């Protein structure tokens, strides 16, 4: 069942236009589906014969569900594809599943367009369809060089809406990043950064096997790639929330009158957004042999959907007041849970926050989302006995204070340990001496 839109989770098979045993041509409509007020024809991703129909007319299934198998004509499939398919023994081989992501594609096309994030981003920024680019990599994959020379040859057919990076910045810079021009080595990197295969394990009696849904699949792939790309290091600091607690208590009524609840997370987001301009590498990312320093602070904020997780982005956090951030967090979290976020609201983060503390965890070691250099994990805020100094007498005393452990995960390629320590120390100072007029 193809994904026909961001907010579409399921579709109903209206009608099979082809029956089992029928020959189908590539791009020939083979079924009609219906979602909400929309009917859509789904074209065949490949020429061949329809050998199995899994979903009957009238049945409603989730996006990503396999609805049919097509037995491709001999020779129609490039050999590497056959090999891939043959490694999954319970499928009729060499079959193509009519599952199709954004738009039904042939196997060759899917393989070709399974490119590195860099290639995909370049394609996106230039409005180029990867499928149109002749690929020279393994199985015809499109390498960075392929797409860059394609863009140089034909130019960009259309410019998408501007993202937080000026669209011509990468095109001006990226070609400078030297790429080895021949053979096996670049292909290895393409595969390493672009492909994820989860190894399979034997099923034991009584076990339940369920396919991962779309969000889970994307999360799994992202986590593997993110950890593969960035050498992760984590540093932890303890932060006193006594002052913030007092500010919250003093302003709670006033903020509520203005229709907002300002959470601890809002305070942290505010403080990070003010500091990050002084730490361009923390608010940046490695891109090829360059570092991109983001011009604004866009804070991604992990929201637990239980099951699953989504990371809405507060664009331009550095331009918002504390109250504005508080409102935005509630708005985004609410719409994340009701699955009402627009695509641009989950893209373009320059830094992320995650809050394992909400369920009592003391400290987490979060994975840095790809395309960024750091993520801050906020642990549970609890009352703890701490040693304080009496400002008048200078003697030590034990006091009860609200405190939390914060862990910063950072990409050690561009953020040194001392940078992270300075950032955390500044963050501690700003939060513990939080300005009244933020």
């Amino acid at each position, binding site marked *: 069942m193809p994904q*026909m839109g961001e907010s579409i989770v399921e579709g109903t098979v209206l009608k099979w236009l082809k029956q089992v045993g029928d020959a189908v041509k590539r791009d020939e409509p083979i079924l009609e589906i219906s979602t909400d*007020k929309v009917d*859509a024809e789904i074209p065949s991703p490949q020429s061949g014969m329809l050998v199995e129909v899994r979903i009957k007319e009238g049945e409603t299934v989730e996006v990503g569900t396999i609805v049919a198998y097509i037995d491709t004509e001999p020779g129609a499939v490039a050999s590497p594809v056959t090999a891939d398919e043959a490694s999954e023994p319970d499928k009729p081989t060499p079959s193509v599943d009519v599952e199709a992501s*954004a*738009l039904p594609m042939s196997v060759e096309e899917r393989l070709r367009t399974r490119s590195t994030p860099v290639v995909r981003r370049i394609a996106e920024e230039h*409005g180029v369809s990867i499928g149109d680019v002749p690929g020279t990599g393994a199985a015809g994959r499109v390498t960075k060089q392929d797409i860059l020379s394609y863009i140089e040859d034909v130019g960009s057919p259309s410019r998408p809406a501007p993202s937080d990076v000026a669209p011509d910045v990468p095109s001006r810079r990226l070609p400078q990043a030297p790429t080895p021009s021949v053979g096996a080595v670049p292909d290895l990197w393409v595969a390493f950064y672009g492909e994820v295969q989860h190894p399979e394990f034997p099923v034991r009696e009584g076990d339940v096997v369920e396919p991962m849904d779309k969000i889970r699949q994307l999360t799994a792939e992202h986590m593997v790639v993110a950890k593969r790309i960035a050498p992760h290091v984590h540093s932890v600091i303890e932060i006193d929330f006594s002052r913030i607690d007092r500010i919250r208590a003093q302003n709670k009524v006033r903020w509520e009158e203005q229709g907002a609840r300002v959470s601890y997370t809002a305070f942290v987001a505010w403080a990070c957004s003010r500091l990050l301009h002084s730490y361009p590498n923390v608010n940046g990312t490695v891109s090829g042999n360059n570092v991109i320093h983001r011009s604004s602070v866009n804070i991604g904020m992990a929201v637990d959907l239980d099951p699953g997780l989504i990371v809405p982005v507060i664009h331009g956090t550095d331009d918002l007041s504390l109250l504005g951030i508080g409102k935005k967090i509630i708005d985004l979290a609410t719409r994340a849970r009701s699955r009402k976020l627009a695509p641009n609201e989950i893209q373009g983060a320059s830094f992320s926050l995650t809050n394992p503390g909400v369920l009592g965890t003391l400290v987490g070691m979060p994975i840095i989302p790809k395309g960024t250099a750091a993520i801050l994990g906020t642990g549970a805020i609890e009352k703890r006995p701490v040693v304080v100094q009496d400002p008048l007498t200078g003697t030590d005393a034990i006091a009860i204070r609200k405190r939390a452990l914060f862990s910063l995960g950072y990409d050690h390629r561009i953020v040194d340990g001392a940078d992270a320590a300075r950032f955390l120390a500044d963050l501690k100072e700003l939060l513990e001496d939080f300005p009244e007029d933020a």
Partner: protein
Amino acid sequence: MHLRPYPSESMELQVRNLGLISYAEALALQSDLVQRRRDCALPDQLLLLEHPHVITMGTGSRPEHVLANAAERERLGIDLLEVGRGGDVTYHGPGQLVGYPILDLKPDRKDVHRYLRDLEGVIIGTLRSLGVTGDRVKAKTGVWVDGRKIAAVGVRVSSGWITSHGFALNVSTDLSYFRTIVPCGLDDVRITSVSSELGQPLAVEEVVPAVTNAFAEVFGRSVVGKPTNASKIALS
């Protein structure tokens, strides 16, 4: 190699003002234009027209939502057709401005929900320029004025992300015809028209420029040539 004068990314829009045209004829025209748009032989199209009295059943229709029996339909001169668009039963007739956009959604809108919301946006923009405030209602596709339905939306996306079918805005529709159906399968929904809202008569023709402008704005298209009323010329 074929000439592809209007690639997918072409942001041009050709508007065809077809006047009163039968449902079957419009269907054939759409099917032809979908093919031509897919072949990049034409720019995006917006067909604006009126239908003679007809009840259409979308693929989500329940037969019991057609209230008028055969004899009654015969008496009122209403056809009944099953059609390949999403949604439930609806009525078309004179005084209703029907819009069938034939767009290639591939370059900028591969999201059918977004497309539905954009069509609603076109109607809301049109109504605004006529002095009527239209709204969306959560989980009820269409455009509403104070809880009364003024426009219906139901679309089809053909192979290659080419759209057909579209929207129907009641301009000066004789609303009594809606009693022959349960509109869109929603019980006790009240239907309204621009004329009823403004309290004065208004011709469908007078709304065409407003719809064209709103459409071009919402979809970021530039209208090419003069609105043509030729349905046949391009079909030769």
